[in-house]
């Protein structure tokens, strides 16, 4: 395990990314325009938060963070292996003295940078609002059961979901031959997890309440608000209504995301290993 994180030469990928990001040619034309737009949007977001600090709840901002992580992580990671395979630069890494695990961890480190960047850029303003709401500006609608811990719990949901999304993207990237097919497959898979699964959950509610809850309440987009508010939910059923404590589902969701992340990373490592032994062409 040690060789994966400490002294993993593939972490040089971060330096390469840094060099790439700072390269003058990436500060020209459309690249420059994209970066300027990003900064403008970010400043706009901060401005909105400042102006409407009374109306905005921190979980709104956390939803924005979760949304951005869902979009930006696959966008930045889908080609890390498939793209190299397509460009025929992967052979250079496969014939270098690196284990498949080191390659996967090195590539995953890029996701970590995106995650940290987004969490700092969006999570910190959300935290400021949380503090303001908690201590200075009283909430107009009181949140029963919410504590400061709920904020960090919700932030944890965002982070765990980000790790999950990154792992799925990396696994798909190691399976596919081109970055475009990796991108499409990732979008389809995430759609399946985040949209289709809860939709099925809603449909099967009259048949199995437990299965329905498992499919809907473990969805990170549902988990986030549950983690933030710490509420029990009252779900209406044909025969009346049921009270559901959301905490177990949130914990299951976090555990499942972490477990699935590890599984997808192991599978990605296996795929890279097989590529390095010529078992996949």
């Amino acid at each position, binding site marked *: 395990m040690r060789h994966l994180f400490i002294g993993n*030469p*593939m972490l*040089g*990928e971060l*330096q*390469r990314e840094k*060099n*790439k990001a700072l*390269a003058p*040619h*990436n500060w020209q034309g459309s690249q420059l325009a994209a970066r300027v737009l990003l900064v403008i949007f970010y400043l706009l977001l901060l401005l909105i938060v400042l102006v409407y600090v009374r109306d905005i709840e921190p979980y709104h901002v956390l939803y924005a963070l979760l949304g951005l992580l869902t979009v930006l992580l696959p966008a930045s990671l889908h080609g890390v292996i498939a793209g*190299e395979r397509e*460009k*025929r*630069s992967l*052979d*250079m*890494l*496969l*014939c*270098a*003295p*690196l*284990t498949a695990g080191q390659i996967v961890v090195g590539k995953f480190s890029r996701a970590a940078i995106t995650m940290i960047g987004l969490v700092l850029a969006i999570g910190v303003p959300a935290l400021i609002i949380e503090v303001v709401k908690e201590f200075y500006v009283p909430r107009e609608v009181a949140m029963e059961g919410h504590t400061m811990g709920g904020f960090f719990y919700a932030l944890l949901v965002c982070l765990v979901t980000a790790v999950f999304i990154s792992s799925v993207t990396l696994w798909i990237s190691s399976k596919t031959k081109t970055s475009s097919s990796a991108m499409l497959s990732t979008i389809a898979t995430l759609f399946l997890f985040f949209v289709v699964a809860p939709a099925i959950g809603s449909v099967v509610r009259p048949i199995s309440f437990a299965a329905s809850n498992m499919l809907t309440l473990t969805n990170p987009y549902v988990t986030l608000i549950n983690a933030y508010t710490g509420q029990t939910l009252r779900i209406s059923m044909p025969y009346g209504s049921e009270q559901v404590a959301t905490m177990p589902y949130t914990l299951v969701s976090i555990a499942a995301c972490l477990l699935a992340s590890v599984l997808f990373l192991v599978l990605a490592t296996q795929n890279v290993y097989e590529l*390095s*032994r*010529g*078992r996949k062409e």
Partner: protein
Amino acid sequence: MLEVLGLKKKYGELVAVNGIEFSLQPGDIFGFIGSNGAGKTTTIKMLATLLEPTTGTATLNGIDVTVDPMQIKRMIGYMPDFFGLYDDVKVWEYLDFFATIYEVAAKEHRKVIDSVLELTDLTVKKDSFVSSLSRGMQQRLCLAKCLVHDPYMLLLDEPASGLDPRARAELKDLIAELGRMGKIVIVSSHILPELSDFCNTVGIIERGELLAFGPVRDVVKTISLTKVVEVHVLDAASEVGMWLHGKPHVLNTHMMAPTVVKVEFDGTEQDQAEMLKALVDNGYKVTEFREEPIDLEDVFLRVTKGEVN
């Protein structure tokens, strides 16, 4: 020392490489000759640990490529036939990245990068972006990448494909220099004149079988049992041709000019000397008597049948 023993690769029923055997010493520049699909790339990939042999072994300094691929990877530099580079970084950044990957000590990076750039004649491009390099320069950069960890063996798969004549000439010089540095260099190609200039060992592969292997001169000698001797005389060459016809080891004669006759001959060097003596003894005024050199292309065409898997 590289020793390849019974290396075989099968894809289902298809035998891509069929139990080839050869060995190379430091300083050997081995020209691996074969048509497209003959099994060159498969063999090179097995040596580069990127393919698992079905059976057989290859050992580099006693280390088996299948038993300890990680150690082998530290000892080789592999340049694939088709490759991509990270084109959004500068030349030195690219090499710096691979120096990190190959665990070159951080304080040595600058020195190593400068020396491989100098060797590959890319010093002036050190701060250029990889994307701005020509195909020939990218080829050299890939070779520079292969050299950052000072490998014991270099595997160059079709290194000159797509290069212009000047770039090819430069690459030849570079490979010859690497051989002089004591590295084992394996160069595959199907363009034979490109190899004959600087390889001291050749192997001819067809349908996965190694048909010939050894020092260039020996292979040429073994394969070319019939040689062509050009005889220049002061007299009418036709007369010489007629006289030679039917003599021992003379297979055929061709008139090339009024004073030049070419003799197809299957004798030894001793027989050749005796034929010259007989010509002179019979009063023919021989001004030139020489064996036509047979190049690798001739040898290749004689040995192979043009079959592919």
